[in-house]
């Protein structure tokens, strides 16, 4: 169905090809997953399928790409619209009309299908993707998950034979992602659709894939094979595969179900052992007064690269950096938060979870002072963050969902230097600016090594951009660090680095709150998990308790080893390693 014959792609003014010598054939009816590190050329490969590369993006494509017998050399994307449906990374930016129903019909209108066919297909697609109640809604009012489903529906109505999806679930909460993937599964099985998709969140998709294409990047040849074969050696793999590799399971299980069926012996070996409890200052207990001394704040200074100890009234009571009491907040008529209580103690990493629209971002906006609460109180470092001329950036820093928003210098180096100067502009001591810039550069190097300093922020990959934004925010050395969906578009390596940096900050006393859909990240990094639903806190407790009690939020390892309370592969690894006998 899709044939790549010795395809190489070199973008304009690039010295290295993004793809080189890619040869693969994807037969009809297959669900093929493209994996690889950030920047390995996944998007380029996907966009080459319908000719967007090179017809639209420019650059040179050597070799031949054929879809359903049509060569993309002679067929521009619009002539392939009836056989290939493409859904990009950001569905909202691809919408042409303004209402759900019209958007679903748009491709069919372009193809000139008769009115009765269009009518029927729109109704079918509304049902297939569960969009029937949204049919008359303006697209701008939909949630991210709904928008993603509309975007998929809008190409499905043309009945393409190939569906190409670039990170279809990375913006979605676990239930919405399940919904989208279930719909895809149905399309593959019932309609024989050929699906090619790239996704960083392998734990969500790998069990559905018939075949995996691994792009190692840097000019090395692609690997194509069954998921179990490719994932045995690939550097990107989901936790279930990590556990399988650790335990030496063969064949490698790809789903929780397969893994559970072979996990009996491992559970027996782990029986009686306790997960390593103390890998964080909070580690399950968040009783008042835990291990906080004024000296802790002083050590933050050296770790953060700034020489001055924090003397402002950050102590609050009992070591809580932030206290939220009875918070009610919203936009216009929408009430996003209803009487939320939350405390964020020093040195604790808290994961804020909940479905799209549950109020996570609103809570972050209140904590950072961008939004004034309607009722209740918010105190960060003992003071209300809102209603001042400038945000109290030394108390609290936020990395927004689109980290690129924070960046506006011409190069990475200028951005890092600017981070120092804005730290100084905030009224800190003169020496602080330079130190802030140095600290920012240090954080950036730790998060995204090997980026040339003259790179324009726009040319950075998603993960590198997050790293730069985080480094810039950390330059101000905030007592409370907030991150909104930090793992969108991050590969596993970048995620590990992020977890490393967050832990390091927490160890020096920073309180960290991360809003995320990524259950694996929450299991790996967070000491505590808070779940929001409909603007209310529905669960608040140690990660181990909260995530293992909810199937939607449980990480794969927890599901495989339940009822034993293991959360991550590294937990298991350490427990087995401590025992002396490796797997």
């Amino acid at each position, binding site marked *: 169905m899709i044939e790549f014959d010795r395809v190489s792609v070199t973008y304009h003014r690039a010295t290295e090809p993004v793809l080189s010598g890619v040869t693969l054939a994807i037969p009809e009816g297959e669900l093929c997953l493209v994996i690889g590190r950030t920047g390995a050329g996944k998007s380029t490969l996907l966009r080459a399928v*319908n000719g*967007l590369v090179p*017809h*639209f993006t420019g650059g040179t494509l050597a070799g031949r790409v054929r879809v359903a017998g049509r060569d993309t050399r002679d067929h521009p994307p*619009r*002539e392939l*619209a009836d056989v*290939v*449906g*493409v859904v*990009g990374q*950001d569905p909202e*930016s*691809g*919408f*042409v*009309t*303004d*209402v759900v*129903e*019209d958007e679903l*019909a748009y*491709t*069919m*209108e*372009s*193809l*000139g*299908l*008769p*009115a009765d066919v*269009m*009518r029927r297909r729109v109704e079918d697609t509304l049902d297939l993707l569960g969009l029937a109640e949204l049919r*008359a*809604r*303006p697209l*701008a*009012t*939909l949630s991210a998950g709904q928008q993603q489903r509309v975007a998929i529906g*809008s*190409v499905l109505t043309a009945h393409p034979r190939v569906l190409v999806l670039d990170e279809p679930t990375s913006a979605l909460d676990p239930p919405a992602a399940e919904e989208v993937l279930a719909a895809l599964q149905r399309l593959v099985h019932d309609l024989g659709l050929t699906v090619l998709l790239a996704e960083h969140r392998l734990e969500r998709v790998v069990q559905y894939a018939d075949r995996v294409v691994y792009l190692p990047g840097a000019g090395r040849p692609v690997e194509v094979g069954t998921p179990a074969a490719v994932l045995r050696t690939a550097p990107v793999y989901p936790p279930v595969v990590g556990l399988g590799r650790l335990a030496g399971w063969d064949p490698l299980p790809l789903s929780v179900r397969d893994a559970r069926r072979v996990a009996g012996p491992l559970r027996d070996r782990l029986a009686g052992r306790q997960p390593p409890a103390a890998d964080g200052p909070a580690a399950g207990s968040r009783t008042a007064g835990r291990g906080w001394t004024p000296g802790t704040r002083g050590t933050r200074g050296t770790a953060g690269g700034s020489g001055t100890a924090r003397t402002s009234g950050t102590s609050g009571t009992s070591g809580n950096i932030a206290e939220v009491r009875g918070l009610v907040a919203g936009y216009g*008529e*929408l009430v996003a938060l209803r009487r939320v209580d939350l405390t964020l103690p020093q040195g604790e990493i808290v994961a804020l979870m909940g479905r799209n629209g549950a109020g996570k971002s609103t809570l972050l*906006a209140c904590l950072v002072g*961008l939004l004034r609460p309607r009722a209740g109180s918010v105190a960060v470092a003992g003071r209300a963050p809102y209603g001042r001329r*400038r*945000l109290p*950036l030394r108390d609290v820093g*936020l990395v*927004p969902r*689109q980290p690129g*928003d*924070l960046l*506006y210098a011409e190069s990475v180096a200028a951005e890092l230097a600017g981070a120092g100067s*804005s730290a100084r*502009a*905030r009224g800190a001591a003169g020496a602080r600016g330079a130190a802030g810039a140095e600290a920012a550069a240090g954080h950036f190097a730790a998060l995204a090594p090997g980026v040339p300093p003259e790179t324009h922020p726009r040319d950075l990959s998603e993960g590198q951009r997050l790293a730069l934004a985080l480094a*810039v*925010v950390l330059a*101000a050395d905030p007592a409370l660090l907030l991150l909104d969906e930090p793992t969108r578009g991050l590969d596993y390596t970048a995620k590990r680095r992020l977890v490393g940096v967050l832990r390091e900050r927490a160890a020096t006393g920073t309180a960290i709150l991360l809003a995320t859909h990524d259950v694996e990240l929450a299991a790996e990094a967070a000491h505590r998990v808070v779940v929001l639903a409909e603007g209310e806190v529905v669960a608040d407790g140690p990660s181990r308790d909260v995530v293992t009690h909810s199937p939607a939020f449980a990480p794969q390892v927890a599901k495989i080893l339940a009822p034993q309370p293991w959360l991550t592969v590294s937990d298991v690894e350490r427990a087995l390693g401590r025992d002396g006998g490796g797997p």
Partner: protein
Amino acid sequence: MPRQLHPGAWWLWAVGLGTAASRTTNPLLLALVAAVAGYVVAARRPDAPWARAYSAFVKIGLAVIAIRVVLQAVVGAELPGHELLRLPRADLPGWLAGIRVGGPVTAEELATAAYDGLRLAVLLACLGAANALANPSRLLKAVPGALYELGVAVVVAMSFAPQAVTAVGRVRAARKLRGRPDRGLRGLRGLLLPVLETALERSIALAASMDSRGYGRRAAVPARARRATAALTAAGLLGICAGTYGLLDSSATAGVTSGAATLLGLPVLVAGVLLAGLGLALGGRRVTRSRYRPDPWDVPEWLVAAAGVTVAAVFVVLGGDPALHPSTAPLVPPPLPLAFAAATLVGLLPAVVAPALPRLQLAAP
């Protein structure tokens, strides 16, 4: 059955009322036209963002009257008559002799200005009524295939505005998060660039999406036919412009009776419409698109359009009637010509014949 009326019908109706308003300066008739338009809007306006346009248009209209009257009082040409007050007169140098500033203000003068302003305001109200009643995106769906690409450009531009607002909010928040000014001149500079950048990135993503979804697929048409299409359409549009001008602008034909102007304008208009229609039909052959759920043109549409056309026709055909232009010098109370008033009331018909709107058109999120 509750449904949305074809937007073209609403526009024909509104243009009909507007045509009538443009043919008279009689304040009673003008007020009647405005009342008719307002009543229909109140009866058949959907609950949608674009439907709020009406009040904005009315406010602009009121401002137009006020500005027109004030300007007349201060710098307008003098009309002898009942002096109401005397403004201090500014002495201008000789080379500005034609312009008067200040001086006596007469009732005749103000009445002329008010009548004029009112006519413009009522025209605006008719335009506002069309905007409030007809869904703009559905109207664009109804444009001929040959103009489709133009329509898409407009749709994209319309969707850009709300997105720009969101982008401004995001960028401002981000600037606050960096401790940079988000207001004032410096804030504006820091705001504009990222917002434009976002807009550019979005348009590139949109173009890629539209390309992948078959935008711009065309049937093969010989070059000669394409050129003929272009020529026909251009000539047709010119004809429509010239004809409309002749038909509506009675002051352009000062000295000639209105009937003569109509006779001059009408054939040109008809010829223009025919030519443009031919061009669009030819151009449409290149386009392979089809339409999803086009609005039907049914009995209610005919009735609504006919109501508008009837009002316009009466005012145009009987355009010579002096009651349409009551005298302001000498200032007399304007008469209410019953024939015209009755004709205007025909414009109320849509409030009854247009189908009721479906409930829950645009459910709130």
